[in-house]
Structures are given as C-alpha cells and as structure tokens.
C-alpha cells in the first residue's frame, strides 16, 4: 500500500506525489505497515524468545538484549530494560517467558511517556526551527509540515536558513510552492541569522500563522557551526518574544547510537523541544526513539513513514509500542 504513495513520475525533474489511491487507512494501520519490516524481524525474534511455555532463564534475557540492541535501542537503555524486567520477574513473580512481553511493552511505554505534539497556537507567527545533522531530511520534513498546516487553513511562511548547501534554498522553494506557503530566502552564503531576521519581519507583515525555519545540516561536533545555530535562535528570540516556540531536532531513524550524541549536543546549543524521526519506512527499527527519550530527554513528536506529502505523522507512543510488538495473526 505504501507503494501507491510513491507514485513517482517517470518524467520531470521534480518529486511527484501521486494521489493517494489506496483507501484511507487508520494511522495505526499505516504505522504498522511502515514498520512492517521492523516488525517482521524484531517481532518474530521477540516472539521466538518469549514463547509460551518457555521458562525464564538467563538465556532469555541474553536473547532479548540482543534483539533490543539490534533494534538500535542502545546499550545503556537495553541494560536498563533488562534490569527492570529481571526485577519485575522476580517480584511478581513471573515464570514463563511469554509473560515478559507485556512487562517489556509497559517499560518501553513508560520511557516514551505521554504523547506530545507540535501544536502551533498563538505566537503570531508561531516559529518552528528545524535543526539536525546533514542529510536527515530537515527540508523534506519542513515541506510536509507546511503542507499540513496550510491544508488546515493556516497560513505558513518558510525561511531558507540553509544558505550553505548548494541548491538547498531551491529545494525548499519547490516545497513551499507545493504547500502553498510564502517563501523567504537570501543569496547563497548569506548569514542565516539575517535570513531569520528577514523571515520574522516578513511573516509578521503577512500575518502568517506559522513560520518554519530551515537550517543547514551541521555535524554537532563543529563548535563554530553550533555557535551559528545559537545565534539563529537568539536572533529569533530577540525579534519575536518566545521564538522559536518549537525547536525540532530532525533525526534519521537509520542512525544508530550517534543519535544520542546528536541530541545532547544540539540540546546544549538550542532549546530543543522535540524530535522528528524520519525515514521509518525503511527497515530501520526506530529503537533509537526509546534511547533518545531516555538518555537525552527529548520527546519524539513527529515521525516520517513515507515519501508522500501526508506521510509525516504525529508520534503516538502507545501505537508505536503496539506496532513494534504486534504479533502476526
């Protein structure tokens, strides 16, 4: 069903979105589909480990540990989960491996916490700043987010704060056309903070409801680039009280443990309020969502499950956990 969304034009130099011909499915169904690869590998593995009738022994924990680490849940988080499971098993007490499944789900759900969403209200405009390392899908995420808001009847402005990468502004401009959003840019190589200054004043003058600022991908280890990001956020706050209202760290679901480092460093530079986890439609397990929430404290707010313009979804922790462990019928 996802393939129908990929209806890619064979002619033309732009990304093409085919109309969604498949019947609308529930968000849960779609997430399940998107995670199907994940589920096949991960669920089968977990299913095999936590068989009905198998006694709980050290081997069970070892195998579970392997499954979680292979899902990119991270060494520290995995060890924590194992500790918790051992404790629960001892205290309850649990005897059978299959009884560990609900306990594991509950522990992961607890780490993920309650759902938190990006909710632009007030702010005039409500400023969203997208940050992240190179190639995680910032520009695409912004395009989809803008399309979501304009389809809800809000007016949106996009600002090309990536003045570094060749043709980054052009890419965003195409997205703004698609989403029907206003677009602000300067020449390549301009100071991104000055783009932000322009954008805020322009979005105000237009009375845009939402202003979404793109930034250049930057390795979190580059001190000067992180300082540049600090400046961007500072200028936004100076020009508009409370801005940026939302700072989204865009993370690639195929990223491994480095996502934790990314989270920590970006959080040091700017007040990250949430993360968008992209590219969950590959075979990535997305276990990194759990690690990032637990070890950095950044809640996942959005997930990208496909390439279509409406494939950016709100993150629902309970659905995520269910989809992760959904058993084959």
């Amino acid at each position, binding site marked *: 069903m996802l*393939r129908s969304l*990929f209806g*890619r*034009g*064979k*002619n*033309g*130099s*732009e*990304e*093409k979105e085919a109309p969604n011909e498949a019947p609308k499915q529930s968000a849960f169904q779609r997430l399940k589909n998107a995670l199907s*690869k994940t589920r096949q590998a991960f669920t089968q593995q977990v299913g095999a480990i936590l068989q009905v009738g198998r006694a709980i022994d050290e081997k069970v924990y070892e195998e579970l540990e*392997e499954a979680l*680490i*292979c*899902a*990119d849940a*991270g*060494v*520290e988080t995995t060890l924590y989960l194992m500790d918790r499971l051992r404790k629960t098993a001892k205290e309850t007490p649990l005897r059978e491996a299959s009884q560990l499944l609900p306990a594991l789900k509950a522990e992961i759900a607890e780490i993920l916490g309650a759902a938190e969403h990006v909710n632009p209200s007030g702010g005039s405009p409500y400023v969203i700043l997208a940050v992240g*390392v*190179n*190639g*995680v*899908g910032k520009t695409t995420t912004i395009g989809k987010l803008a399309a979501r808001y304009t389809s809800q009847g809000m007016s949106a402005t996009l600002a090309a704060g990536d003045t*570094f*990468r*060749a*043709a*980054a502004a*052009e*890419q965003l*401009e*195409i*997205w703004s056309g698609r989403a029907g959003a206003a677009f602000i840019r300067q020449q390549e190589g301009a100071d991104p903070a000055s783009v932000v200054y322009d954008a805020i004043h322009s979005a105000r003058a237009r009375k845009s409801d939402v202003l979404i600022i793109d930034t250049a991908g930057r*390795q*979190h*280890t*580059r*001190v*000067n680039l992180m300082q540049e990001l600090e400046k961007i956020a500072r200028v936004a706050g100076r020009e508009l009280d409370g801005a940026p209202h939302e700072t989204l760290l865009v993370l*690639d679901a*195929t*990223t*491994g*443990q*480095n*996502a934790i*480092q*990314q989270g920590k460093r970006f959080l040091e530079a700017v007040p990250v309020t949430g993360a968008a986890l992209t*590219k969950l*439609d*590959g*075979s*990535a*397990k997305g276990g*990194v969502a759990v690690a990032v929430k637990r070890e950095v404290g950044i809640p996942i707010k959005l997930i990208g499950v496909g390439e279509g313009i409406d494939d950016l979804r709100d993150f629902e922790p309970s659905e995520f956990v269910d989809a992760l462990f959904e058993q084959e019928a």
Partner: protein
Amino acid sequence: MFESLSEKLQSAFDQLRGRGRLTERQIKDVLRELRMAMLEADVNYRVTRDFIDKVQRRALESESLKSLTPDQQTLTIVKEELTALMGETAEPIQVPETGQLTVLMTGLNGAGKTTACAKLALRLKNEGHTPIMAACDVYRPAAIDQLQKLGSQIDVPVFTLERATPEKIAQECMRVVQKESYSAAIIDTAGRMQTNEELMDELVAVKKAAQPTETFLVADATVGQEAVSVAEAFDERLDLTGVILSKIDGDARGGAAISIRAVTGTPIKFFSSGERLDAFEEFHPDRIASRILGRGDMQTLMEKAEAVIDEEKAKDLESRILAQQGLTFNDFLDQLSHIQKMGSLEQVLGMIPGFDKMKSLGFQPDERQLKRVEAIVLSMTPEERNNHRLLDASRKRRIAKGSGSSVQQINQLVQQLSQMNRAMKQLTGGAAPRKRRTKKRIIRHNFPFK
C-alpha cells in the same frame, strides 16, 4: 570519527598496562568492556560476538598469558583482528584496461551521494582523468541543481536531461562519454530505501544502461545496526564493488563501517568527511585500526605533506636556512597554504598520535586563527613580507587596519617569526652535516600557531 571508540578501548587497555602477568579473568573483563564499546559504536551484534570470541580464543590460548608485556600483546591481537575485520589492505578504485571508468553511486536518502560524486570527480580529475557527472536524481527537488553547482565549483561538466527517466539519462550520458571521450563517468542517483522495490528495480535498470565498472554504496558513518541489512540489500540487487563511508567528521564511532565489510565482504574504498570537496581519502584498514587504537596515522600525514609540498621550494627554504638567512613572512604564507591544502586543521592534527587525548582535554584547533595570520601577512607589502624589520609603528597600524586585527596581534606574529629564526640559527649553527634532521625540524616548528 572513531575517537570515542578509541577512547573506550584505551581506557579498557589502561587497566592492563604495566601488569606483569594476566589472569584469564582479567582478559575476559577487558574483552567484556571491549564488547560494550563495540556495541555502543554500532558494530553489528553478530560481528561483535564473533570478533570477541576470536580475540578471546587467541588471547587465552596463546601468547598474552605468558607474555612479559601482556597489555601490548593483547592490543596487538586486537589490532590484527580489527584490521582483518576491515579487510587487510586498501582497495583502490579499479580502472579497467580500456581506461574507461564508469562509477555508479547509490545509497539511502541523505547518505551524501551527491557530495561524494563531486568529491570523487575532483579526485579523479586531479589524477589526470577527464570526468563527467550524470545527474539521475529526478526526484529530490533541486538535486540536479545541487550537482550542477558542485560541478561548476570543480569545473566538471554535469550531464542531465529534462523530463527523462534516470535510465535514459544514464544511457544518453554514456553516449556523450563515448563521443566526447571522457575518461570517467560518475552517475549520481536518487536516494532510496532498500525496501522500496520499485525504486530498487529502477536502479538495476540504470546499472544496466550505464554498465558501470564500479558500483558504490554511499553509507553514512552514523548508521546503526541497520547498516548491514541496507548493504546486503543493495549488494544483492547491484553487486556492489565498494563502499564510500560519508560524514565521518562527526563523532560517529564508525561501527557500521566495520560491520559492512565484515558481513557483505564489500570493501570500503573511500571515506568522505566534511563539506570541503577535497576531504576525500582512500580507506586503509591498517591505518584506521591504528587510529581506532589511538596510535595516530603518521603514514597518511606524511603522504599528505609530500603531496602538497613543492620540492623546489622546500630545497630553497632549506638552503636559506642553512645559509642562516632567516625566514620571512612569505615562508609563513607557504606553510599556511600547505596546511590548508592538507585538509581541515582538525583532520590533519587527528592523524598525530595522542591528539585524541589533547582533544578530550579541551583543546580545540581553531581554523580561524590560521585565517587571521593569513590576513595579516596578506596586508603587508611585498617588501614587508621579505623583511619584517621594516615594520614600524605606522606600518603596523596600517596592516592592523587592513587585516582587521590589532597591532598587538601583529607584534605577536613578528615575535613568533623572530623566535623561529633564533631557533633555526641555534639548530643550524655550524651543524651543516645534520642536514636531514634539520629539514624535519623545520616542518615541525614552522607551524604559524602556538
């Protein structure tokens, strides 16, 4: 990259240091930490398990327990196994007998394919090829623009067609290659998930049209446990001949890199770091193993230095030093350009053993400082550059204004130059026979920063 893996390994090995004898238990403890470090570095779970088993067997069976320097012995085993895991020797790009090179670049979205294309093109061009790039990413908005902009930066033509399939573009590009006799074609493709069959089919069609001599997977160094299934899927459909590891300038621990080679057998051929288009290196497993184990990579550093230093100028410099003529600001400028040609300061310093430790103590190389020095020297007149004694207060004020610095900074620089000259004089004072050593010293002491 690799730094934090290297840190963890070293702290594990530090526990062994200086012990006369090792018990089985001690070795096992260290290997447990090694296992955690590898898993945290995103090395594939199975690869890690096999690796640890192998090292443990070797360490316990043989050498280490009886050795007089058990820490060194264990370290050697780890290094050997690590090198074996990453594929022993470097595998350079294969130029077929016809001399006609065609490279197909593939990978997930956002892996850095387009940038890697330009970097590879620049490298081939510097090696004497006449490359052309084909822009087959018809999906991502402005992807073709991006390749065209990069192409014009490095002066390499970019071929593309409006409203054509990637297959068609590749086909036509190959025709152009034939007709206009380019010696290398690099084909950029759109990023795709390996699970998307339709797009994978398309890639197979592009491959068929282009008949590449090399098919590369561009893999992001930060990829997690997924690395292996991604590489396997691409390899199964496309018969990969190599991997380009991208974005190694972050603090990714590079475990993915290690795993891809170990599981698919596809060698890593290059790695690509940072935005500079010349930041593209051949992958040498042994040198990387050495870097991971915190022993630096002097070999690459020497090669880089040799590549940028002009033999004639070096001789001229040497003879002037021996004649005790003293260095000038022109020499400063030369040195600066050498360093900058070798890569970013951080990369260059990263190859020096022990730099990891300095960095963990908070030392941050500052590229801007080099720029500042350069600006100051460039604000001098040719006479002033040749003879710093001309610099009086009024000239210094002018230079400060011109370079946006202060008179103090200029004084500092002049002082550095005089100090260097004094040091040279002491070194060369009548000691002409020690020629070779002198030369080495020059290179080391001449860095215009403290």
